[in-house]
């Protein structure tokens, strides 16, 4: 696991890392809160060092709890949702569609 240095103390996660993932996850976090979160997350991630002791080179990742394969569905139409009911729950709608502010700064 990577260790990052903050003021001479080795920490598994830095304030920069936290700010970066907050941006990736679209969470506006004030700078003052970044420090607090960093401390808490660093403490949690310190605990994670316990697995550094394990030799996992020959271990296959486990991605499924129960071994199912080929779960498929027939290509048949099912009833749709009522558009009015759905749009009534929307924060903003116009012309049968969901309305959002200008889509600037996002990548398709």
């Amino acid at each position, binding site marked *: 696991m990577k260790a990052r240095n903050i003021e001479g103390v080795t920490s598994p996660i830095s304030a920069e890392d936290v700010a970066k993932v907050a941006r990736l996850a679209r969470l506006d976090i004030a700078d003052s809160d970044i420090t607090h979160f960093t401390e808490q997350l660093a403490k949690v991630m310190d605990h994670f060092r316990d697995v550094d002791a394990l030799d996992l080179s020959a271990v296959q990742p486990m991605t499924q709890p129960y071994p199912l*394969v080929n779960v498929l569905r027939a290509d*048949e*139409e*099912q009833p*749709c949702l009522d558009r009015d009911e759905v749009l009534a729950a929307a924060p903003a709608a*116009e012309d049968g569609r969901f*309305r959002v502010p200008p889509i600037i700064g996002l*990548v398709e």
Partner: protein
Amino acid sequence: MSTLLPEGWELICGLEVHVELATKTKLFSGSPNRFGDEPNTNIDPVTLGLPGALPVLNEQAVELAMRIGLALNCTIQPCTFHRKNYFYPDMPKAYQISQYDQPLNIDGFLDLPSGVRIGVERAHLEEDTGKSTHIGGATGRIHGSEYSLIDFNRAGVPLVEIVSRPDIRSAEDARQYVAELRAILLAIGASDAKMEEGSMRCDANVSVHRVGTPFGTRCEIKNVNSIRALGRAIEYEARRQYDVIDSGGTIRQETRHWDDAEGRTHTLRTKEDADDYRYFLEPDLVPLVPSAEWISRVRANVPMLPAARRTRLADATGADVQGEAVSVIVERGQDDYVLSVGEVGGDVARALVYVQQAFSEEPSTPRIPAKDIAALTVMERDSKVTSTQAKTVLADIVANGGGDPAAIAAAKGFEAIDTSEVEGFVDQAIAADPDAWAKFCNGEQKAMGALVGLVMKASKGKADGKVVTAILNSRRG
């Protein structure tokens, strides 16, 4: 096109083509896969990314995806689905379910009509996004818009993304690749592949380099909406990159937007702007392991592909396999018909010409009985009608959806006249216009026209122009 780049330089291109599959319902849920319906009427909890919704894979989408793989000579393998995480308002879950390191189809190829083989790296399944409309800006684009409206009808529609290897070396190659791919998709019933409607979308990766050196940095070009635009965009971009390098600059790896009106590309985003997609295995789905038996059944559902059809038709008719007649007939799907004319005793080479010329409005299964066309080809072959007369009779047959060519010819007064009669008319013409004959003998080809005209008049149009010409040429010596 050797004038695009200087000697020793070449362009390298790979294409990523997204194809909407012709299923009834979406990839992971049962709402309809239909173009043009009222916004947000083909939606369900899965399509909208509602809390608690779960995806279930559409069997027919897998069938069609496998057909595409087999048609592109791919290996079909056990595969998994991954989440590609990023935020965009037309992405209802803020992740797209796609395939990452274990896609369904790998290691295929597509042979262009020119004979060049383009490698196909992979063809995988993924879901489509919704559609945004931008309101308030001058151009209808995001820039300058006041707000946007999102329609999720298209969200969840099954896509196959076909990624070629960077084997394309010219705009013409690229155009042929897309055209042939489209023909294949139509032939196997996987998609209607209409670029104008968005059911087939092309992105091009373009770079340039000096031959014999490593490939250069590539740029991705988006917003190419027709095969013609694809060619123009590739050529523009190759030239742009060469010019940058030639003036001492370096190419920045980026995504560029093709502006067809202006005929240029410009930066959409750089590599640094792109989000980290944080791919991980989709926990709500299980692996897809197509059995050998299923793959066989899919293979049986793949009909003869355009390339094989062209070869078959060319072999049967003696026509050029890369020629326009073969290409057009196969594109129309009328090649089976042409061959069937041969099966009822007709001359297939002539049938090819007739069908090319006169059947452009006919469906792939033409209305006209093959035996009628067969009979006409035989009449022309046996010189019972001239080729000009045959054209007229053909037009009549097509207009009426059929007809007995012998009866039509007779009704029009077309009779065959044999060669000795034509010789007689030629003698008369030479005698009537010795001047023209002298000029013709002197090498003036144009003088032949007057002589032929006299023969036609004297024979009341029944002489075959080709025969007249042949006689005149042989008399001249």
